């Protein structure tokens, strides 16, 4: 305090706080107006960077059958994964539908009592009624294989990371990369190494679902009470004994969450895995997409949601409750009984509800009757928001945009985020993807703005009205488990193949977590603070703006952060419905051999964009709130 220069008598004239940023902004705008059109980096499909990667791919492809790496490693990995998958697939199909439903019900009951058990059985049976039983079982086998592998690698690694901060720090960026990397982008390399088919699908799903297994396990281990660990050591336990008798049991419930999240991530990936000929529900969804047939997609999409609900509730219950060994024999009996029924009941699922026709008619009706409105919305957003923003970002000299981003990062987060941004910008330029990155950036900005506007409003409403919260919760739950692909179709039907469609789909995709985080953030404002504000005579409006929102700041920033990451993930899928730019590069890299290099580079560019935006928003979070800053 004593060294604070502010204590000196104030100078006669002082610039207001906003002067410097405003002046800087003005300079940027002037520079843009003067230099527009120069220093741009137009996109070139045949940039040497891309052809180099494509050639590398061709070279790898040509040596698949003579390189020792393939002969003695990659191909064995493929055979192993394929064998594991075939084993699961065969056993699950071998159980028959009564057996599988029985086993799932028994597991649910074992984990969480009869409610969970019945829910699991009903969910699975509903998949049968929807007419997608065999695909459901294939999906279960695919998810099972990839989750098993994820856990086999992720849990030990997570335990290790939980006890070694150094490993944790080293793993952090790698996991970030794996999660932000659009799944499309690693399908192509997967195919290169593992061929099309189930093994590549399992491997891709595994890569996508392993980060939560590692992260949450590490967190679980970290959170184990140090006293319990010390007590164990003080009694002369070996490190191994402490691990198995203290760390693992105490971390169990959080590790249950890790397993739960791993399963959920895997489920959301299985659709994409179908693009490389892995079996499962995704095939119907992809078929539906290429034929604009919502009726075909919907049962498969719903089935994924149902599996998600069954597995989610079962694993959550298992992690929450104490294990009851006394129930095991009953559960085994129930499973066996189900399997026994397989021999009595028909092998095929007996009764199917056909929904495709009415669903398609409903979609067509909506399309016809809402077209005017939806078209107007689309045009307005595209012409007044998206195109100007895109225009500015792509027509400005690249270094000017980079400078603006850098300044923003520095201003919001400080030096370290700024350095990260600089590195990301440089890498994007070097990848020869500047223009497309800017187009994607414009889409992401618009989508995140819309997501936040909608998500924060809904979150506030939910926090203020218990009834509204109860009403929107199941909708949010469903929206989050529904495979992202399913959003694309209604969006496509309503808005045609445009960037707006992609934005619309990503907004639907990203709003639920934002609502949830905001609602929770506001609810978590300590009641004493609310009471104090009330007793000071605040109106509800003042309470919201002066107390609840500022105090929920952290949650809202986290929501923005999540929104960005999820939007980026969706941008690639949006390419399938006209999203264009980086997403399209990734998709075409996956489907055209000659574009492999561009697709791969675009995948990396999306990661770079993601890291950049992530660091900027996280930087905002780390800064002390304004009040404390002033008092320093």
């Amino acid at each position: 305090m004593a060294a604070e220069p502010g204590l000196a008598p104030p100078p006669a004239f002082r610039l207001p706080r906003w002067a410097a940023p405003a002046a800087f902004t003005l300079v940027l705008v002037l520079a843009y107006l003067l230099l527009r059109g120069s220093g741009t980096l137009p996109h070139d499909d045949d940039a040497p960077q891309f052809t180099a990667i494509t050639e590398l791919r061709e070279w790898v492809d040509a040596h698949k059958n003579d390189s020792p790496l393939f002969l003695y490693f990659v191909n064995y990995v493929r055979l192993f994964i394929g064998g594991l998958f075939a084993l699961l697939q065969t056993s699950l199909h071998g159980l028959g539908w009564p057996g599988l439903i029985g086993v799932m019900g028994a597991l649910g009951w074992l984990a969480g009592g009869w409610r969970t058990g019945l829910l699991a059985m009903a969910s699975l049976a509903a998949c049968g009624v929807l007419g997608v039983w065999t695909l459901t079982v294939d999906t279960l086998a695919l998810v099972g294989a990839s989750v098993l592998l994820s856990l086999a690698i992720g849990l030990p690694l997570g335990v290790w990371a939980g006890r070694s901060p150094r490993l944790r720090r080293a793993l952090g960026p790698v996991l970030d990369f794996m999660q932000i990397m659009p799944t499309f982008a690693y399908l192509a390399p997967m195919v290169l190494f593992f061929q099309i088919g189930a093994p590549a699908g399992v491997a891709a799903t595994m890569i996508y679902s392993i980060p939560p297994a590692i992260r949450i396990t590490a967190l679980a281990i970290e959170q184990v009470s140090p006293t319990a660990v010390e007590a164990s050591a003080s009694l002369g336990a070996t490190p191994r004994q402490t691990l198995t008798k203290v760390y693992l049991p105490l971390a169990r419930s959080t590790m249950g969450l890790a397993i739960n999240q791993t399963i959920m991530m895997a489920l959301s990936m299985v659709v994409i895995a179908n693009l490389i000929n892995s079996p499962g529900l995704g095939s119907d969804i992809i078929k539906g997409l290429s034929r604009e047939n919502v009726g075909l997609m919907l049962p498969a999409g719903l089935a994924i949601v149902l599996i998600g609900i069954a597995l989610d509730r079962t694993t959550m219950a298992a992690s929450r409750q104490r294990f009851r060994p006394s129930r095991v024999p009953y559960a085994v009996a129930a499973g066996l009984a189900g399997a026994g029924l397989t021999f009595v009941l028909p092998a095929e699922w007996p009764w199917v509800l056909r929904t495709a026709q009415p669903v398609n008619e409903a979609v067509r009706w909506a399309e016809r009757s809402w077209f005017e409105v939806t078209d107007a919305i689309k045009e307005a957003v595209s012409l007044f928001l998206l195109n100007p923003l895109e225009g500015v970002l792509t027509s400005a000299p690249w270094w000017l945009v980079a400078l603006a981003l850098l300044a923003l990062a520095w201003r919001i987060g400080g030096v370290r985020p700024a350095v990260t941004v600089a590195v990301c910008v440089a890498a994007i330029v070097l990848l020869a993807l500047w223009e497309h990155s800017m187009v994607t950036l414009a889409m992401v900005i618009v989508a995140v703005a819309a997501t936040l506007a909608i998500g924060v409003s809904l979150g506030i409403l939910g926090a203020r009205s218990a009834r509204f919260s109860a009403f929107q919760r199941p909708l949010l739950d469903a929206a989050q488990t529904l495979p992202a692909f399913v959003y694309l179709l209604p969006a496509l039907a309503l808005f045609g193949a445009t960037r707006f469609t992609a934005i619309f789909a990503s907004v639907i995709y990203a709003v639920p977590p934002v609502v949830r985080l905001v609602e929770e953030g506001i609810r978590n404002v300590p009641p004493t603070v609310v009471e104090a504000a009330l007793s000071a005579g605040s109106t509800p409006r003042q309470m919201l703006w002066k107390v609840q929102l500022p105090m929920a700041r952290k949650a809202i920033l986290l929501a923005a952060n999540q929104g960005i990451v999820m939007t980026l993930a969706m941008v690639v899928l949006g390419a399938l419905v006209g999203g264009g730019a980086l997403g399209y590069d990734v998709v075409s890299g996956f489907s055209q051999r000659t574009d492999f290099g561009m697709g791969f580079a675009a995948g990396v560019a999306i990661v770079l964009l993601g890291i950049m935006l992530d660091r900027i928003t996280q930087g905002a979070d780390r800064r002390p709130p304004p009040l404390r800053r002033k008092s320093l």
Partner: protein
Amino acid sequence: MRIGPESAGIEVKGLWKIFGPKAERVLTSDDRLLEPAALRERTGCTAAVRDVSFEVRPGEVFVVMGLSGSGKSTLVRCLTRLIEPTAGEIAIGGDDVLRATPAGLRELRRHRVSMVFQHFGLLPHRRVIDNVAYGLEVQGVAKAARHARAREILTLVGLDGHAGSYPDQLSGGMQQRVGLARALAVEPQVMLFDEPFSALDPLIRRDMQAEIIRLHREVGKTMVFITHDLAEALKLGERIAIMRDGSIVQLGTPEELVGAPADDYVADFVRDVPRSDVLSLRWICREPDEHDSMEGPPLPASTLIKDAVQVATATALPIRVTDGERLVGVVDRVDILAAMAPRQPVTA
């Protein structure tokens, strides 16, 4: 199983624990003599334990007292190398702890020294009986045997009938009894207590202190007891070490601390202690002068002042203070009253 004395002594010589990078270098340089704040400023290190030496006799209750941050918890953890000391010597029952191999160290922790923790450190996923039996389980004792032993100990600490409960179903005091039982179950020679009762309510704390005194009488283990509560220290400790900034500032019996504080720090500490509860007549008796009658009742010099009150009220004559047959001095009513009066600040 093991042949050896029921309890073992502890010898600590020149013990140092410095946290932070380059701890070794700090130790060998003159930096180690710096004040804590200056040391941190200069080297980024914290000296939690600075050149501490003491001995604990077999069967003794030895209390380490200090405020938080004084290094007492670090000190007790160094004894079994839960925290690795930077330098010094530690011997328990004559065996060098710092040179023990990992296996030897485990052996020490399994059979000879056990510890009770401030926040209990119970395993919430295990029933009480399995918590108590944990040390035996780690040693590889068969289930039936360890459960039998755990039941015995549960009876000893007054937790009959709670064997099947889970820790979170018990009150704080009962949980700490479980912690105590767990430490006792392995039949250690030495028990270490790291502020075991500071998380408990005052009433329960008093019960638990009584429990420790009782247990000490019954099982006669060597005990090292860490606390920040002077009353607790005085109540339990046969000898007390007072720590400040990682060093022991005074080591002595409760009487010595209260009667002859080594410096202002200790004096400040013990100022509010009712002297009559701690000091014996030895501390207030004076040479008899010619006016004193030698007819008064005799009392041993180790009698606490408060316990002499009754005798003093019964007689107007000065009490003769004796050490065996020898006369140490005399004490009259006025002396006793003066000793019982709360001390006034000098300026008053």
